[in-house]
């Protein structure tokens, strides 16, 4: 909301402060100032001048030479403006002064434009006559200004006075951010009331008195509200003998500074009252109202209606309409109809000030696709008491501005008002909540400024109807706090029982995952949780894959962000591809984030959110690099048993011969592998890439950071190396399993040191070599221990089809 400070000051006449002081104080009391613009910041040395004489320029057809009386002297000004004549009063910027913009009305330069005396085609010119654009405004906001020409001031203007002041530009426009609970502050009076309380100065709202004529409104119009659930109050008044013309300058200026274009006295009055009271109004030409009857009722599904902007609108049975005896004449609270629009020929005006139900207006405006200043105000839920005040103010202005006569009486169709909120005055509780020691007197003084009435006898506070946000003691505490000053409230730390700060176990395991990933050169990425359903095709997932059952967003930003991911690889592959295509070498990334697996579809309960530890890289390294990182992580979170790698469960998105599920304790806790070349292609990743995904809930369940010292043997280890040939199909993992199972208690470690296929090894076989260490905790091993263990191992290996190489 934008409002000139001068308009606020009209209701807080004792308010005196700089723009910055006002901005700071209002923001600190809860009416946030987003910014302010000093209208005269680039207007300097501009006075009213009178053109005494105009002569042609001797050397230029399009220029004229004017002698201008600026009060203290007569100066010569050369201009190209076509619209001036002798006797005109005009704004003149003197030598060394400043204007806000150029005559073409383009964007205003930050520091304005300096004006200096000089010569135009050889003729001295000692200043400049100004157009409205040069003064920083527009013809829209100053309808009296001519097109392409100097602004001509009224003939009776005094020569030599400050033209900036005269044009109402010695002012500052403030932009406020009003919070949605303060409906009352979407009005000049509401903000002025806050300003008065903030600066502790008297608030002087306009006094509304109307001289009515002796006609009765009942003879003009009747009102019937059929759907009172959507219209709690409908006030109507009639003004006759309407004379359309421009509104007075002071009103035009105030509207212009609020960003509202002045049109004519009648339109300006309704806009003015909407700004001033925050109550939208509508004016009908009564002669277009059939039967002189207003009926407020819901539209029918499929109805259409042409609003006064000439657009046809589709209606439905939840849209409230204003109708006459025959037809619809306006969409309630949103926009009037073309068929009852005010024209310059209007004789009699019917004013409407109503209270429509906010939620209904909001939803209707959304469905119809038409949000107006009026609907924006109605949707916040207005105070029905304000409707009467506003309509009376409008009638007062009609009369005071000589725009017409006010017919006596008001038609008022209303439901019973909500009772005013009455709350006990509990100063102790307020202080307890704030942690302050504010006196009762101070609190009551604040309530008085906020127009919250105190009854000393009952010790009760009555909240005014326009403060729909004050409902309980916490709200009263806020009133006290913000006018006392948030900055004056002391600071302390919570007392009471002490609590231990901590991370939950899950987050500790995740922290470990980050540590291990980073120690191995992987950097942390972050991806979106939602993606396109097309990723399943990119990952070559079969049509019947469970991963295609997604938690789907009903109102996504687009298909690309429409399903909650069920697999974390798309994010990883996309990120790797981004890096690859930017020529980053050897990129290693990891991510810790959720996937979302629906328990059933359609969703009736929350999905299973599973934290995934995803690793991916390209460049330096291979399958076994990834395997090393994964094993390091598992060992670091206490998963000390051997992880088994099962290559049988083929995943479509991984290389069929270079992938494995990770099995721990019989449970699949993740998988790793080389990305399938077709999938790489689908991601524009023209290199080999490796990924691993660990399903963290399984890991967290089994993780432990407990360690027990086991004793370090003082006795030496004995090592035996063996080399064997085995059929290619035998997995190294199977060989190791045999060695581990058969090595007995004295087996300390098994290290593969060679795998070889090729010449010297017969077709279909490979050579595998191990170094096996034995050690006892309590004694030196004897030869018999070693040979016994080795014999068992060798027997087992023979069963696998291994031939020992000598």
């Amino acid at each position: 909301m934008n409002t000139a400070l001068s308009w606020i000051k009209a209701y807080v006449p004792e308010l005196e402060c700089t723009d910055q002081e006002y901005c700071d104080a209002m923001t600190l009391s809860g009416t946030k100032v987003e910014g302010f613009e000093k209208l005269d910041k680039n207007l300097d040395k501009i006075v009213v001048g009178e053109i005494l004489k105009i002569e042609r320029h001797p050397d230029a057809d399009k220029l004229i030479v004017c002698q201008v009386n600026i009060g203290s002297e007569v100066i010569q000004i050369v201009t190209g403006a076509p619209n001036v004549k002798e006797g005109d009063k005009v704004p003149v910027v003197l030598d060394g002064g400043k204007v806000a913009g150029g005559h073409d009305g383009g964007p205003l330069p930050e520091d304005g434009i300096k004006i200096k005396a000089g010569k135009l085609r050889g003729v001295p010119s000692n200043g400049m006559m100004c157009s409205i654009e040069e003064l920083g405004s527009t013809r829209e906001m100053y309808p009296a200004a001519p097109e392409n020409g100097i602004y001509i001031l009224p003939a009776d203007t005094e020569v030599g006075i400050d033209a900036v002041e005269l044009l109402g530009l010695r002012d500052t426009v403030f932009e406020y951010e009003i919070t949605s609970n303060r409906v009352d502050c979407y009005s000049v009076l509401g903000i002025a009331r806050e300003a008065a309380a903030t600066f502790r100065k008297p608030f002087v709202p306009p006094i509304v008195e109307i001289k009515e004529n002796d006609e009765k409104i009942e003879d003009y119009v009747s009102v019937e509200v059929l759907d009172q659930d959507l219209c709690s109050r409908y006030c109507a008044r009639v003004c006759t003998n309407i004379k359309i013309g421009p509104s007075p300058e002071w009103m035009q200026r105030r509207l212009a500074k609020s960003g509202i274009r002045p049109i004519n006295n009648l339109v300006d009055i309704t806009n003015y009252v909407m700004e001033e009271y925050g109550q939208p109004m509508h004016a009908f030409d009564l002669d277009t109202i059939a039967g002189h009857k207003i009926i407020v009722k819901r539209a029918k599904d499929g109805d259409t209606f042409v609003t006064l902007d000439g657009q046809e609108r589709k209606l439905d049975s939840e849209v409230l309409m204003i109708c006459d005896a025959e037809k619809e004449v306006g969409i309630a609270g949103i926009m009037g109809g073309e068929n009852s629009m005010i024209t310059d020929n209007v004789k009699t005006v019917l004013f409407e000030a109503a209270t429509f139900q906010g939620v209904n207006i909001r939803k209707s405006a959304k469905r119809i696709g038409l949000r107006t200043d009026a609907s924006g105000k109605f949707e916040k839920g207005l105070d029905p008491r304000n409707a009467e005040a506003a309509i009376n103010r409008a009638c007062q202005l009609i009369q005071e501005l000589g725009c017409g006569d006010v017919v006596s009486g008001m038609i008022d169709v209303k439901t019973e008002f909500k009772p005013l909120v009455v709350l006990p005055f509990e100063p102790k509780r307020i202080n307890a909540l704030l942690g302050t020691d504010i006196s009762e007197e101070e609190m009551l003084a604040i309530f008085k400024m906020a127009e919250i009435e105190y009854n000393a006898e009952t010790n009760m506070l009555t909240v005014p109807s326009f403060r729909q946000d004050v409902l309980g003691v916490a709200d009263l505490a806020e009133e006290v706090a913000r006018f006392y000053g948030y900055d004056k409230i002391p600071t302390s730390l919570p007392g009471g029982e002490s609590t231990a700060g901590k991370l939950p176990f899950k987050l500790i395991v995740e922290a470990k995952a980050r540590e291990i990933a980073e120690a191995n050169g992987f950097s942390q990425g972050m991806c979106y949780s939602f993606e396109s359903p097309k990723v399943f095709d990119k990952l070559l997932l079969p049509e019947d894959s469970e991963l295609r059952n997604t938690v789907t967003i009903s109102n996504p930003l687009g298909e690309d962000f429409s399903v909650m991911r069920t697999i974390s690889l798309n994010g990883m592959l996309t990120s790797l591809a981004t890096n690859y295509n930017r020529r980053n070498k050897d990129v290693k990334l990891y991510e810790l984030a959720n996937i979302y697996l629906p328990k059933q579809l359609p969703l009736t309960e929350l999905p299973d959110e599973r934290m995934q530890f995803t690793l991916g890289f390209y460049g330096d390294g291979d399958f076994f690099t990834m395997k090393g990182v994964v094993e390091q992580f598992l060992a670091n979170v206490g998963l000390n048993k051997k992880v088994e790698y099962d290559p049988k469960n083929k995943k479509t998105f991984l290389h069929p011969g270079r992938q494995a599920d990770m099995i721990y304790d019989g449970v699949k806790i993740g998988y790793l592998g080389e990305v399938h070349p077709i999938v790489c292609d689908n991601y524009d990743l023209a290199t080999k890439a490796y990924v691993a995904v660990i399903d963290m809930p399984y890991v967290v369940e089994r993780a432990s950071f407990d360690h027990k010292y086991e004793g370090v043997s003082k006795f030496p280890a004995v090592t035996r190396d063996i080399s064997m040939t085995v059929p290619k199909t035998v997995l190294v993992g199977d060989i190791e399993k045999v060695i581990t199972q058969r090595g007995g208690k004295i087996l300390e470690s098994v290290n593969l040191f060679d795998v070889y296929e090729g010449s010297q090894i017969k077709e279909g076989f490979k050579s595998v070599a191990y170094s096996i260490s034995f050690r006892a905790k309590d004694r030196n091993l004897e030869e018999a221990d070693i040979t016994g263990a080795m014999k068992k191992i060798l027997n087992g290996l023979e069963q696998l089809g291994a031939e020992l190489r000598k």
Partner: protein
Amino acid sequence: MKAKLEEIKKKALESIEASESLDKLNDVRVNILGKKGELTAVLKSMKDVAPEDRPKVGQMVNEVRVEIETFLENAKKKMEQAALEARLAAEEIDVTLPAKKLPRGHRHPNTTVLEEVENIFIGLGYEVVEGPEVEKDYYNFEALNIPADHPAKDEQDTFYITGDILLRTQTSSTQVHEMEKGKLPIRMIAPGRVFRSDEVDATHSPSFHQIEGLVIDKNITFADLKGTLAVFAKELFGEDTKVKFRPHHFPFTEPSAEVDVSCFKCGGKGCRFCKGSGWIEILGCGMVHPHVLEMSGIDPNEYSGFAFGVGLERITLLKYEIDDMRLLYENDERFLKQF
């Protein structure tokens, strides 16, 4: 005898002097002091010396021996020293050659900031908790005093899954889960992902992170909220950081405030980060609305509390002077490696 010993000594010293290598030195040692060496031979011939002279001769032989050994030792040390110096000289490297890159990944800047925030609050006795990202309408809105048809529901531009299930728009939903557990007092922070239907641009993302804070106990005051956030701001942004509380409105707190900190880039003088104001808005907060307490089964007459919500990305962007939010989700390693 004496002359013979002098002879041996002289010869030994001369040979040592003449030795060019450790091997030669060793030869000298063997020739003179070894089992078959000349001096050893003298000792062996002691039996021929008159018994009364033996101690004297023995002493003389020993003196010569010690003298030769010392000389030998010194020569050896000198030679070793020279050899070492020669080796070190030969091994000189160009220290300006590039460093070997050791693998070390980089933490996402969001995580680094989050960990800082977590550490501050853990130190103040807060537990870190998590809540679901796909959430029931009740926890995201209704239980936070945002009933159906409340304008705030529109303002937040929610992604819906079904009529009742949505992507949480704020970590405040975690407050409700924590209060419902019924364990008091509560001191918690809840970091996590939240979602709002904002198109992606330099300052908006449909997915971002918040950190929620909640304290509920007897006698918790607005002054406690101010004090806590002042400590937080000083810890995060530096000891000289000032904090400003401005009244604001949130449906689930009353009184509510927005909090500005003095600009940690310019110290409050005004710069491009604070848009010249000297202040940077970092969070929203307030006293937990009595109605919110009631809905979660906590008696507002006995307990009070405060809550706050910080936008993680906002702090990350400001702290590291990152000018485009999209960089946080692109995962370009050249970006990530800067943190």
